[in-house]
């Protein structure tokens, strides 16, 4: 009925449904949740970039400052006040917390983005292949992604990293990528199969379009909101997995990461000794990162499903 205002032509039921579905094209990406989420993530990247320029990162080395100093404005159990030289305090081996997070926070994001990007590209490739080639190829891809989606990546990676010892950040991202291609593959395969039947793809075939044109010019643009959503969900999964490995004491040993800092804090009994900044600051940063990702995901949900927008 609402469409009556702008459109003089009478609308059929199907048309109204269509109009509702497509209203997202009016102004879809200017979603407050999306903006806030992106803002939080950009904040973390900026912390890494600006921090590198303004702060002396040599403080990240063991014993560079006094041990277990609290952040400025607090006192630790030994009644030592925080000092401006290490504004966020120091950990149990005298490393500056601020330097730790300047280096560590962007690292976590980097692992998540890289793993998800690789997983996503694999997913797009396999999903389109399965949807277009069909037959045996489709069966193999489908069964493989069904199987792999139930295997928790963390456990395989635990086996891997405990046998290989130290790994680099990039290596860890690559390993995680091996477990985040399944859901994009399934999603794209399903979408491709349904789009193949859609009127506009048939029209494109009638227009003599090549398979490449149909995939990339007709289908892919319509998949963008879904791909984005799946990408962000994968970033979250990848970071959770990476942090999980780090908290178990695995993952990169020589580069500071947020997860490894938490691992060391728990091992040193920081909870009982009330050294809250040691584990609390990395936890908070990870929290900010995950809230940012959640907000982006919620925003994207609303972009691709306009009915959700009404509710919020």
């Amino acid at each position: 009925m609402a469409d009556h205002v702008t459109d003089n032509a009478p609308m059929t039921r199907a048309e109204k449904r269509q109009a509702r579905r497509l209203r997202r094209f009016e102004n879809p990406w200017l979603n407050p949740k999306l903006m806030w989420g992106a803002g939080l993530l950009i904040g973390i990247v900026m912390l890494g970039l600006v921090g590198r320029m303004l702060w002396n990162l040599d403080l990240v080395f063991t014993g560079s400052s006094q041990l277990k100093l609290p952040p400025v404005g607090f006192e630790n159990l030994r009644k030592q006040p925080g000092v401006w030289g290490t504004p966020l305090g120091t950990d149990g081996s005298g490393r500056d917390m601020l330097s730790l997070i300047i280096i560590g926070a962007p690292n976590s994001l980097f692992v998540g983005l890289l793993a998800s990007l690789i997983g996503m590209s694999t997913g797009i490739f396999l999903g389109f292949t399965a949807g277009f080639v069909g037959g045996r190829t489709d069966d193999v891809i489908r069964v493989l992604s069904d199987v792999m989606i139930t295997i928790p990546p963390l456990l395989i990676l635990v086996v891997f990293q405990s046998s290989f010892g130290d790994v680099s950040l990039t290596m860890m991202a690559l390993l995680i990528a091996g477990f985040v291609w399944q859901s994009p593959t399934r999603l794209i395969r399903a979408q491709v199969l349904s789009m193949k039947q859609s009127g506009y793809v048939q029209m494109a075939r009638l227009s003599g379009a090549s398979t490449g044109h149909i995939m990339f010019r007709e289908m892919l643009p319509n998949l963008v909101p879904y791909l984005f959503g799946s990408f962000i969900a994968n970033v979250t999964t990848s970071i959770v997995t990476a942090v999980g490995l780090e908290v178990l004491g695995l993952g990169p040993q020589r580069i500071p990461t947020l997860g490894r800092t938490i691992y060391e804090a728990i091992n040193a009994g920081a909870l009982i000794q009330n050294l809250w900044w040691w584990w609390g600051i990395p936890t908070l940063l990870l929290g900010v990162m995950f809230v940012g990702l959640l907000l982006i995901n919620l925003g994207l949900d609303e972009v691709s499903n306009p009915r959700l927008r009404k509710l919020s």
Partner: protein
Amino acid sequence: MSRIPREYLVNRLITLVLTVLIAATLIWIIPRLSPVDPAEIALGRMAAGAGTVENADEILATLRAQMGIDQPLVVQYFKYIKGVLVFDFGLSTAAFPTPVSALIANALPWTIGLMLISLIITFIIGNLLGALMVWEKTPRLWKVAIPAAMVFTSIPPILSGLLLMWIFAAKLQWFPLTGAYGLTVEPGWTWAFVSSVLHHGFLPALSIVVVTFGFWALGMRGLMITVQGEDYTTLAKAKGLKPRYILYKYMIRNAILPQVTAFALKIGLLIAGQVLVERIFAYNGMGKLLYDAILDQDFPVIQGVSYVIILLTALSVFIVDLIYPFIDPRVRHEVA
């Protein structure tokens, strides 16, 4: 069973077997690709204990024979697969000569207990809250409160675990900091023991529930919106049915179906998250066993624990798949 279409059943069984086989193979291959020699690690441990070791080469050879790693790879592989089928993962190197299976048998009940309770509570609460976010008769206060609670749900359970631990165990001291039961109580079916277990299990369970209910709530919200627009919901209202009855029998009952499938897909991730929670709470389950094994470089235990957890995941998925046809009649009739 006769109600489930055969083709469906066969399909799921193949997935189950493939999952377990692929996982077992990965767990076997990966350490063999590594340059690290487990026999040398064992030797190193001996050396650390005894100061010096004579005849290092001989001992190494004996250790290799004991571990079976002197045989051809194919033989090793089939021996391994055969062993895995009867839960024989060899002996723990850290707690030599305890069989890995015995260690796992001790830890497994704790994990399953914690997991079942927290997963089921999360699923129920999450879906119910998600449904209430959409239902038109939900009180306004709830409609504001539920999305606000979602903020928690973005963080992984280890972080919520840390926060809860700090607030309720370290600061307020309402709950014990670590462990699955008090050190002073004797295990057994006594009230003291059971209450101690519940007391210790509360925080780990809560840290899982707090962060994962939102995943279900969000999914349910989207599904409920779809169901709300369905013709059968409109007709249910036109039939003059009571709103609550429509909510349960028409809306939630239909919207929950894809959630059950999602449950099967996400179960692996959820269990892995729980393993980490066990680790920070030093809860006597598989997570702690795994963590200790990593510290000790105890490969047989790492392999065994990983395999059993993956098997558990695959079995849960299989069970969910078996139940599914009974809650969705369309699947039951599809193939038959």
